[in-house]
């Protein structure tokens, strides 16, 4: 299957050597995208998170042990497995920017996309969202609240891109030529360690494009061929090795 090409390809490079697993990205994402809180968040299968921070271990005993944290948003695949299985085109990869869309009013909740996604980046609303104690007053107007029965996922804060384009048009600038940093996702913005770099992978001037071509940049399960737009950067071999399924004696690039 050919990858659909776009003039702009929004992408992310996450430096796993800089992430300390603090969770600021997860909180910022929920507040920005109107995810509902949940009293018991320990059942990770039922909890909705558009970005989740996983803990990685080098598997060695103390004192050789090393730890890393891997934030996982939707990987925005070049040819997304979720799109081809959606019976109602609720999810598509058809818009300039290369963001995999998620049209929740169109979603019928069949969850084929969840089964197809190799990154577990999709979440199903088993229940209606509840914001207790007046918490709904802090909802942003940017992202519709989703009812039960539909699937949702990270959209690279698509509303922020729309807002940046609108602003450029109003100011008489070319909306397809936004300066670097004018549109970033909420998690990128929040990260105090600067672990997340966001920008146009097709624009060589953008930092993210440079990082994506680094020898230390890998993608999650790269050999599945999903051609994802999220890159992970680490100078640690053991970290890069965990991003895909390698044979024991197989060398990892970087």
């Amino acid at each position, binding site marked *: 299957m050919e990858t659909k090409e776009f003039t702009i390809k929004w992408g992310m490079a996450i430096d796993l050597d800089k992430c*300390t697993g603090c969770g600021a990205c997860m909180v910022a994402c929920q507040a920005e995208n109107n995810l509902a809180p949940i009293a018991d968040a320990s059942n990770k299968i039922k909890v909705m998170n558009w970005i989740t921070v996983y803990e990685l271990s080098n598997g060695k005993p103390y004192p050789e042990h090393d730890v890393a944290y891997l934030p996982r948003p939707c990987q925005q695949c070049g040819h997304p497995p979720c799109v081809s299985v959606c019976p109602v085109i609720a999810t598509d990869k058809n818009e300039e920017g290369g963001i995999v869309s998620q049209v929740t009013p169109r979603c019928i909740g069949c969850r084929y996309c969840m089964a197809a996604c190799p990154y577990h980046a999709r979440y199903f609303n088993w229940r209606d969202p509840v914001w207790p104690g007046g*918490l709904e007053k802090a909802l942003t107007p940017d992202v519709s609240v989703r009812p039960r029965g539909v699937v949702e996922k990270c959209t690279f804060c698509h509303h922020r891109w729309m807002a940046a384009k609108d602003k450029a048009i109003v100011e008489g600038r070319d909306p397809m030529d936004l300066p670097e940093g004018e549109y970033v996702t909420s998690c990128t913005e929040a990260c105090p360690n600067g672990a997340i770099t966001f920008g146009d992978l097709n624009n060589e001037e953008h930092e993210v494009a440079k990082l994506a071509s*680094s020898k230390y940049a890998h993608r999650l399960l790269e050999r599945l061929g999903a051609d994802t737009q999220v890159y992970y950067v680490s100078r640690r071999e053991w970290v890069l090795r965990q991003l895909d399924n390698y044979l024991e004696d197989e060398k990892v690039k970087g």
Partner: protein
Amino acid sequence: MAVDRRGFLKFVAGATTGVLATPVPWKLLDDASIWTQNWSWIPRNVDGENSYISTISKLCPSAAGMKIRLVGNRPVRALPDDNHPLSMGGITALAAAEVQLMYSPSRVKRPLKHSGDGAYVAISWEEAEKILKENLRRAGSKIAYVSGDETGTINELLSGMAKESGSEDFYVMPSEVQPAARAFAAMNGNGQLGYDIENSDYVLALGANILESWGTVLRNRAAFKQSHPAAEKPTVKYVYAGPVQSNTAAGADEWLPAKSGTEAIVALGIANLLIKAGASVNAPDFAEFKALAAQFTPQKVASLTGVTPAKLKAIAVELSKAERPLVLTGSEFGQGTGVATVLAGTAVNMLLGSFGREGGVKALPLAPKVIASGMDRSEIADKDLVAYLSRISAGKVPAPRAMVFYEANPVYGLPQPAAMAKVMDKVPFKVAFTSFLDETAQACDLILPTPLGLERFDDVETPYGIGQAFYALARPVAPCAVDGKPAADVLLNVASQLNMDLGFATYEEVLQAKAEAAGADWDSLMEGEFFTSDAVAEQSGLRLGAAVMGKALAAAPKAAKLSIAPVQKLNIGTPNTAIPPYNNKTIRRWELQKNEMYVAMNGATARELGVVKHDRIKLTNSSGSIQARVNIFEGVMPNTIAVLMGFGHTAFDEFSKGKGENVMELLTVGYEAGTGQSVWNVAGVNVSKA
């Protein structure tokens, strides 16, 4: 009448035709589809014009600078502020949830009175102020004030009220601030220790959780961000010494496993090696310090701390080779450290020539106090809340007749909270100024809702950890979401009725005076600007504090066979906030399952204890006991159990209450020899299967 086969089929065909001809099945099907799809109410987006207000967090210990996004007049997001020195384009997991905390289900919505049968009774502000005034008058000089604010001028107001009524009992909740202030005072220092982490080229954090919770953490993390360009070799080496491979260790370039509470010993071990390599300090007690440091040979340090001689030597060499090295000290859980720890760390900085140098330690000037009868920071640092409560508990001093708690939650947040709660029982009248119905508020007779930092005027002066003098205002971005009144206004009103002369009629006047004292421009502060100054406090006759260190270390408690290492993470909140609603999703799978918390130990320790992952265990010591399940994490030192702080709330809401247990139950208070500072960074524990 017999029904034959033909008759039966006729009947079925007739009935089928009849049923299909009526609208009933279609109506039922329609209704079923409607009613099964008739979703309960979910909120709709409310649009409005966007605006942004710059302010500073009073809720997050990092004093995070932030921009609040408003839609219409509704605050919706707390965003990082690129131009703020205490944000530098980042936000903590706690500050990011601050807007949502305005609507937290556990907010105190109106003044409450605890009735005789234990129920809360809503009362008016007039009645509440009357009760407060009468009880403060009745208590006279037998009153104590406890503040949970480290950086606000409200401490001058509270301590001023205490002093005006003839009491010396004003205390701030324990943190890294008091040992640091007392250490600098013991050095004959003037001002507050500041750390120029941005300009350092080698950072050694001894226990200080600098990338998660220590000091002005967003500034630390911005310095880390700058010095660690993505996919490139770091330009500054960060080394973290502590018992657990914490978030700071995960970011640091090297984790140096060192037992909890042994930071001073590691520092002295390094000092010894530096002195042997020719380093010296022009201080009157250098000879005494040299003799003290000489006792801490690499072998001795290894036996006490777990840091191998080779590692210690390597760190000492790296430090001496660096041009602008910086050593930061603290405890991995932000409290319970002794004065000697800060002294030892500062001594290493002085040996490295990093005191007063760019990228090193500075003495920051503090603004003079503006409430004449109030206490300044050095006076406050001498007031040890844990020691005071312990003395009451032991019957050495009488319990006060009244206690006033300002945004402080000692019933949850102090070591041995059960003992602290018993002390509370001895106090006839307790009042809590609080935003949330926390454990302390639940133990109080009067609960007065305060607006959050986003809903009131407040200030932040030079938080501990920052590298330059600083002053900024927190400004209300929205009306108070509950029927709250700023505590400062309530207290000033009550103080005037009690004929106390604090010199100011409103808190805004106090803040204006403070801003002027700090050298800041009020008008620009009101526009969200902040004041910084690179001025340093003049020093004369600076000592190393060798005698203090010597006494403290000679009597330092020995590490137990099995010890606990509390770990602080800001995403799990503070005693004042508990776990904010959005933040419990950030708790990892093997940190909490339903209401059971996990504690972490390495595989060797687990084998020695005869436990495996998920086993239920009971951790017990002389202070108390908690129950938890076992998680195996190899990033924990041998014979150490890492326990997360922030669990085990018995108050607040469904996002915090009843989740896990409070590690403070296991922390035993001791007193540092020589300084008398209460310390609780070393705690032994026994483990049994539950």
